[in-house]
């Protein structure tokens, strides 16, 4: 039934809808919602999308099922590859990345979509929490046409007034020209997706704004779990739930093992 879906499935569907045919989708490690979303978009409306998992580039719109890979460094994800690039050579054609889309997580996110994977604590040499490191997010967030911040939880610990450290630059201290002033060619973060709702960035200030509320979530609940004041429009729509067809494709062709329902 279409009413019976997990919040991860909802997030995957919402993300998939926002991806356009012809785009190149770069997926990093340990992001099952994103892995499902790009496959779903590819099968639903993106026959010319290219999916890149750790340098393995594929177009699999012709396949019936595209199940999730087991692990990043796994031969099994290579079976669909049309080309492969190692990490170093992945940056050989940054010029082309205005058509690329990327997805980033964060241990902290601030009101302007700057994200932190370095760690938490005032003193860098004695962090309270040492993060995993920037992966490729500094370069990717600089160059891709747009990117999405995708988070598994929504809390005041993550959404903070100021990141202790910034590993991927979003909109800096705000303003529509923040990135242009720094000479960053990419289009910056578009949405921040969480289990509570979808956030975007106000046109002028580029401050984070509540864009839609997942079914059953209130604006007060989102604000209460956010460590800074969100821009709150008068009307905030409810996130459109998955359609029957979206859920059907997701569950039968993308995620038959139900990873997103665990």
């Amino acid at each position, binding site marked *: 039934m279409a009413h019976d879906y997990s919040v991860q499935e909802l997030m995957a569907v919402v993300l998939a809808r926002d991806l356009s045919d012809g785009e190149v989708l770069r997926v990093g*490690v*340990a992001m099952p919602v994103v892995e499902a979303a790009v496959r779903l978009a590819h099968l639903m409306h993106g026959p010319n999308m290219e999916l890149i998992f750790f*340098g393995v580039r594929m177009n699999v719109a012709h396949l019936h099922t595209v199940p999730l890979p*087991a*692990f*990043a*460094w*796994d*031969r*099994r994800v*290579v079976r669909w*590859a049309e080309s*492969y*690039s*190692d*990490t*170093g*050579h*992945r*940056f050989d054609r940054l010029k082309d990345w205005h058509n690329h889309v990327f997805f980033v997580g964060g*241990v902290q996110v601030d009101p302007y979509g700057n994200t*932190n994977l*370095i*760690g938490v604590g005032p003193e*860098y*040499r*004695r*962090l*309270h*929490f*040492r*993060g*995993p*490191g*920037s*992966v*490729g*997010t*500094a*370069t*990717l*967030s*600089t*160059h891709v046409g747009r990117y999405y911040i995708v988070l598994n939880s929504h809390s005041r610990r993550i959404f903070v007034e100021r*990141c202790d*450290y*910034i*590993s*991927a*630059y979003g909109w*800096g201290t705000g303003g529509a020209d923040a*990135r242009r002033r*720094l*000479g*960053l*060619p990419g289009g910056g973060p578009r949405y921040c997706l969480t289990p509570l709702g979808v956030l975007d960035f106000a046109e002028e200030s580029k401050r984070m704004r509540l864009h839609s509320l997942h079914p059953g979530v209130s604006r007060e609940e989102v604000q209460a779990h956010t460590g800074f004041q969100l821009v709150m429009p008068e009307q905030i729509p409810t996130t459109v739930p998955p359609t029957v067809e979206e859920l059907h494709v997701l569950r039968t062709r993308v995620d038959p093992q139900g990873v997103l329902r665990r």
Partner: protein
Amino acid sequence: MAEQERRQRIIDEVTAASWVTDGMTIAVGAPPPMALLRQLIRRGIKELTVIDSGLSLDLLIAAGCVRKVITYYAGGGFGVPVVPSFRRAAERGEIEVWECEEGILTAGLQAAAQLLPFLPWRGGVGTSLPEVNPDLKLFSDPIRGETLLAVPAIKPDIALLHAATADAYGNVQHYGGPGWLDLFLYRAADRTIVQVERVVANEDIRRDPWATTIAGADAIVRAPYGAHPFSSRGFYVQDTAHLREYLDAATAAVQSGHTEQLTHYLNYYCREPVTHGDYLERIGVKRLLTLYEY
């Protein structure tokens, strides 16, 4: 005319590991060349600067080999956002972290490979990276005056890699492309040791010269199953149960101070086996054969 033979470059894993001495900078490829790394642990190498990521980095830290880490990622898989030994050692200041990022690390390795003092990079402008890593300098480019990062050359003493095949003369071929940064580590390093699943004839290499990814490794180590417990493309998948065994042991040592499990792991798998063959005996043929499953 002098009768001379072309020199072969095959050495065993024990000899190979002896090239590494305390305090060196080593670069670890992907999949990690575990036969070589276990020998480093066995020999009690200390004070290394290590370019690596993930669980193999964590193992070297847990074994006490590491003083400084150059890494862009220390996630663990299995839902573990940060590998445990790295995390604790970094939080306590027991290891130094040279904070970087994939593109920045690539640029620094390429600079070393091309004997340039630096290469410019745009990714990282606007971030905290040049603050937490003062070796990264913002500068104004001499052509258009744009603000860029100057990434200094990053030069490993030795690159340790794992690949599919090589001939006796150091011509290395991967199946399905080289790992993450392997080619850049090779280019930047003073010397490169590659352990391979199979040693093949020179004629096999010459059948497809374009597939030669590393043309002239300094030494080749024959190490079938040498990436275990990690996967080796075209040969075997990862040994998930074994990786979990390590991760559980390291997590227990860090979170609750119970170090027995970790000590056992290090002794049983890394310190006691004299050769790679001894290690594989402890894993067992039956277990190894299950890893062929697709």
